């Protein structure tokens, strides 16, 4: 090899090269697939996420043959028509919504205050505070639920297990999620906006009311929505703290053994639809505004 000149080597390399061929449809297709492989995996992951939701919605239109709603039988809207006449469902839904509303309000207020303290102030014990906020998120729900039950039992409050104890528990585990969500928003604020307000002679109160708070508000709203969905959907902790009270997830859990009626699927479908509307409509409006501007 070493005796070859550069030209000779180049000539040899050219001779050894496969002749150039226009890429065929198949190879172009496969190259496109290969370069988009990550997107395909992502689409697969989304599909994985949504198949059960699709099944829940689809089977709300099923007319099950027996008490179990697992096999497709026949299209029917009877579950949608009858959903509000099933008192078990409406009662449990009412309790769930009540609990979720109260715990959302309290947890959002308490969590937002903490988020401002952590996000806006330097104080002794900041690390400890952060740890205490992180702990409930890093504790299995079974442990939190059984701890709370133990507390209520040792305080001889076993008889008063019900809505109040459920709400107490839901506020407890929601606070951390509110803090984390609002804190992220506060951390992302541009402090020059506040400085600008104060340069324009706004005092601290006015600056907070007219600049800081409105800027943080989307974070607070997102946190409240998160808290609501966490509370509304919670089963494990509720299972320990509910006594005889039946929330909607508790109702489904109880019904799972004897067959979940399609009416429960209707509620699931409605919740999904409502949440999508609440989340997507502002997004779409923003998109339309942007495209007009």
């Amino acid at each position, binding site marked *: 090899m070493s005796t070859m000149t550069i030209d000779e080597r180049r000539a040899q390399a050219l001779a050894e090269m496969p002749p150039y061929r226009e890429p065929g449809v198949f190879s172009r297709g496969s190259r496109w697939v290969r370069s988009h492989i*990550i*997107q395909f995996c992502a689409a*697969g*992951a*989304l599909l994985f996420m949504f198949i*059960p*939701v699709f*099944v*829940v919605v689809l089977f709300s239109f099923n007319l099950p043959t027996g008490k179990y709603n*697992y*096999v497709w039988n026949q299209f029917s809207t009877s579950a949608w028509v009858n959903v509000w006449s099933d008192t078990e469902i409406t009662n449990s839904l009412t309790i769930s919504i009540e609990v979720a509303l109260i715990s959302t309000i309290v947890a959002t207020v*308490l*969590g937002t*205050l*903490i988020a401002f*303290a952590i996000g*806006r*102030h330097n104080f002794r014990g900041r690390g400890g505070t952060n740890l*205490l*906020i*992180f702990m409930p998120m*890093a*504790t*299995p729900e*079974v*442990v939190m639920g*059984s*701890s*709370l039950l*133990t*507390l209520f*039992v*040792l305080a001889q409050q076993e008889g008063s297990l019900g809505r109040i104890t459920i709400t*107490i528990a839901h*506020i407890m585990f929601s*606070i951390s999620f509110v*803090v984390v969500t609002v804190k992220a928003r506060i951390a992302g604020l541009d402090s020059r906006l506040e*400085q600008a307000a*104060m*340069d324009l*002679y706004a*005092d*601290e109160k006015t600056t907070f009311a007219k*600049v*800081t708070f409105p800027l943080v508000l989307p974070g607070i709203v997102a946190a409240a929505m998160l808290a609501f969905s966490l509370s509304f959907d919670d*089963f*494990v902790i509720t299972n*320990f703290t509910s006594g005889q009270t039946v929330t909607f*997830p508790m109702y*489904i859990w109880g019904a*799972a053994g004897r067959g*979940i009626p399609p009416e*429960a699927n209707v509620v*699931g479908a409605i*919740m*999904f639809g409502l*949440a*999508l509307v609440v989340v*997507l409509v502002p*997004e779409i409006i923003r998109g339309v505004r942007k495209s007009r501007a």
Partner: protein
Amino acid sequence: MSAAPAPGAAANTPADDVARPVGAHKWTPYVLLTPGMLWLGVFFIIPTVMLVKMSLSSGTAFSGDGSFTFSRSDLQWSNYGDAWTKYVIDTPIFQKSLIYALIATALTLVIAYPLAYTIAFKSGRWKNFLLVLVIAPFFTSFLLRTNAWQTILVDSGPVVTFMENIGLLDFLHTVTNIPDSWPSWAQIFPDGITDPNRVLATPLAVIVGLAYNFLPFMTLPLYASLERIDIRFIEAATDLYSSAWTAFRKVTFPLSLPGVVAGTLLTFIPAAGDPVNAQLLGSASDAMMGNAIDAQFKSTGNYPLAAALSALLMAVIVAMVTVYVRRAGTEELV
């Protein structure tokens, strides 16, 4: 509430200085913290202490006078011994929970990473929409969704038939069915991870259910840390002739580690204690720690044993998380 005052502003608003004494400033954060922290103290810290106290007490809820005795001089460490014998040695429920949760976490990471990567780098103007899609399944009751897996994986249904026909179930069954060579594995999966002809009521169904349930908890932290990566680092790597794969392995992935750590923790911890998937998708022999604790509290009424189980689960998780976080070298999680 104090916004850091701009240098010029403070001098221009003397009223502000007079109205709020300097001392108040120092207390502001504590005033803001107190109500929430009190709540967490009373309903998170104290219950945890009570749980430990209960785990060292004697008595049962459903027999005798239903009360519990705790004495400092007579701590009932035997509750922990009983829990250990019952749930680690006699039936490997403890190990089973951890292994199921580990496999589910690995599965979740593999599924969530491409999704988070696509949203962070390849989604363009669809980014917000895709993020909404990731959290959207949350809005349908997770019990209903878990239950929907019963429909999807129903015996001789299309999904199971397909997995059977391509030989996947047979393969998984044969590969994971190791009776003698690895006794501790065989103890956890006595009949392999799945049956050759069905998925429901096998460990596979429970693991897939767990992976499914906690997918958003993995995707969102992954997305958050990928999103923060300066894309120029990746460009620099490819400019220096690294292949796309090398650039990913040496630049993108290491930079996304905080998200990987946060996501795996947020998946593993709840998965290890979850009672729902094992109950709805598994068979009786797939019972996990969550089910055991639940049963001891609700059916047996042996609160001290149940409390010892809970405390044990928490202790093991704290130990594992500490080692893991040290290894991964990311101390800041929140």
